[in-house]
């Protein structure tokens, strides 16, 4: 009998050299995390679906692999480490010494429509910091994210910074009769026509990623922006090899105001600083993170929480350098059929 070597859509086996490279990067990252005082936690690949229901968006729900176990329980394959960690740690918090620093590594599985380069299994390394108040926690975690991101092979490296709810006031003011979630989606795609000319402040933000004046965001968001600028400047000097940009439009669909519909997109639990890393030329992030106190609050625990995850396959393989001009020149001779 001939057995096909084909794997299900979106799955990949790493053989020999590919496995060595992945383990090499993972090992260097783990060493860095342990050196920074983070301890490892190991989590199961399967869990009940029910604890995650409050944190699911339409997008993240559609990515879940769910099934009914033989004993009738509705289960889901792990699609995200952070909610699993939160739901396991929230009831244990009173007995834990804070601040708590820990990291994880392992697979998450998410359904993606069949498309070249879209995997359904992702190997992640991530870290979380619980119980450290103020901007120091964000600074520590972001610094760690930048260290780990720099360990990958893909270049250039770019990290975009923002914070949840930054545009809430502007969006509510500009929406008028337009559904505010549509406007937020248009801002995050930088659709100038969709934003229209009705709000010069929002339009400026779509074009530059920042408000013309921080005051345009309202007093609370303006203060947060000032802090973020300081953090960016500090880290930019420390990581000259990474392009660090403040861009609030990138996170327009992460609101905080209860008058706005819930955040859209895959991960919707952030409520403070947000960051997203790009490596090489590909337009999908290789990692992301932020502050998510509200997830613990929803689980009945009050604690400051910041974390991130990085996708090792995207860091290693999904970002081959763009063909150089010389190579492209050869292709330029190819004619249309």
């Amino acid at each position, binding site marked *: 009998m001939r057995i096909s070597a084909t794997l299900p859509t979106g799955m990949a086996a790493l053989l020999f050299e590919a496995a060595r490279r992945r383990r090499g990067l993972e090992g260097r990252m783990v060493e860095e995390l342990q050196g920074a005082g983070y301890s490892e936690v190991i989590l199961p690949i399967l869990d009940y679906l029910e604890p995650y229901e409050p944190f699911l968006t339409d997008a993240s729900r559609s990515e879940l692999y769910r099934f009914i176990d033989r004993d009738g329980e509705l289960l889901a394959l792990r699609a995200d480490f952070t909610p699993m960690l939160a739901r396991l740690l929230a009831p244990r918090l009173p007995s834990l010494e804070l601040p708590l620093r820990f990291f994880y590594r392992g697979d998450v599985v998410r359904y993606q*429509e069949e*498309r*070249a*380069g879209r995997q359904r299994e992702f190997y992640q390394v991530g870290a979380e910091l619980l119980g450290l108040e103020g901007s120091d926690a964000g600074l520590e975690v972001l610094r760690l994210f930048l260290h780990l991101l720099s360990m990958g092979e893909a270049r*250039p490296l*770019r990290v*975009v910074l923002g914070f949840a709810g930054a545009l809430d006031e502007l969006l509510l003011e500009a929406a008028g009769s337009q559904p505010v979630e549509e406007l937020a989606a248009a801002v995050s*795609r*930088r*659709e*100038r*026509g969709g934003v229209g000319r009705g709000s010069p402040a929002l339009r400026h933000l*779509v*074009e*530059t*990623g920042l408000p013309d004046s921080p005051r345009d965001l309202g007093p609370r968001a303006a203060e947060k922006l000032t802090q973020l600028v300081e953090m960016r400047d500090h880290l930019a000097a420390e990581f000259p090899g990474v*392009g660090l*940009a403040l*861009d609030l439009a*990138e996170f327009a669909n992460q609101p905080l105001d209860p008058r706005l519909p819930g955040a859209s997109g895959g991960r919707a639990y952030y409520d403070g600083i947000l960051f997203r890393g*790009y490596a*090489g*030329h*590909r*337009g*999908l*992030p290789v990692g992301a993170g932020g502050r998510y106190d509200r997830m613990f609050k929803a689980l009945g625990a009050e604690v400051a929480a910041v974390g991130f995850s990085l996708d090792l396959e995207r860091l290693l393989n999904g*970002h081959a350098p*763009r063909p150089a*001009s010389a190579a*492209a*020149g050869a*292709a*330029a*001779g*190819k*004619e*249309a059929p």
Partner: protein
Amino acid sequence: VIRLALPKGRNLEPTLAAFRAAGLELAGVGGEARKLHLHLPGEGVEVLLLKDWDLPLYVEYGIADCGVVGSDVLEEVGGDLLVPVRLTDGHSRMSLIGRDGTLPEPGTQVRLATKYPRTARRWVAGRPWGAEIVRLSGSIELAPLLDLAEIALDIVQTGRTLEENHLVELEAVAPVAPCFVVNRASYQGHREILNDLIGRLEAAEVAV
């Protein structure tokens, strides 16, 4: 240097006209030229000529920094691209077409022929009738004409093809326009150049 992906075929000339109106000549692209990859150092761009359906993937992968693709294809293919500007191209729209002038009755089940099955599935989900989606790759108008399907979802431009085939536009579902799309990472890396180009496309009043 920015790498710009442009659609081969009938969408190329209107796209080039939009760029020329915005001050980017792209000399040597289009017309009788058959090259698929051109270097235009004087204009600070490289141009790739691609099939519409492949173009979003090239931009998402970062093989190209930006490109122009129809909103119909973009909606169908999906992906996470920035869409700063839609370019006008007349009055194209995605429409539901059929042999007689009536939409399916609520509660009925029909066959719907289309090149855009994902778009059709999303759109039908909000309707009071159901549809079996039949995916075709061309000549969609023939499907309702020859009873392969009761209705079809396709692009209508002037409506002449419909008239000549005794078909009726039942409902315009969405306007269709070429979109200037940008890779998210490229935007962060070449923001100034790309914003300048987007601004010029807007100023030339080819954008909507």
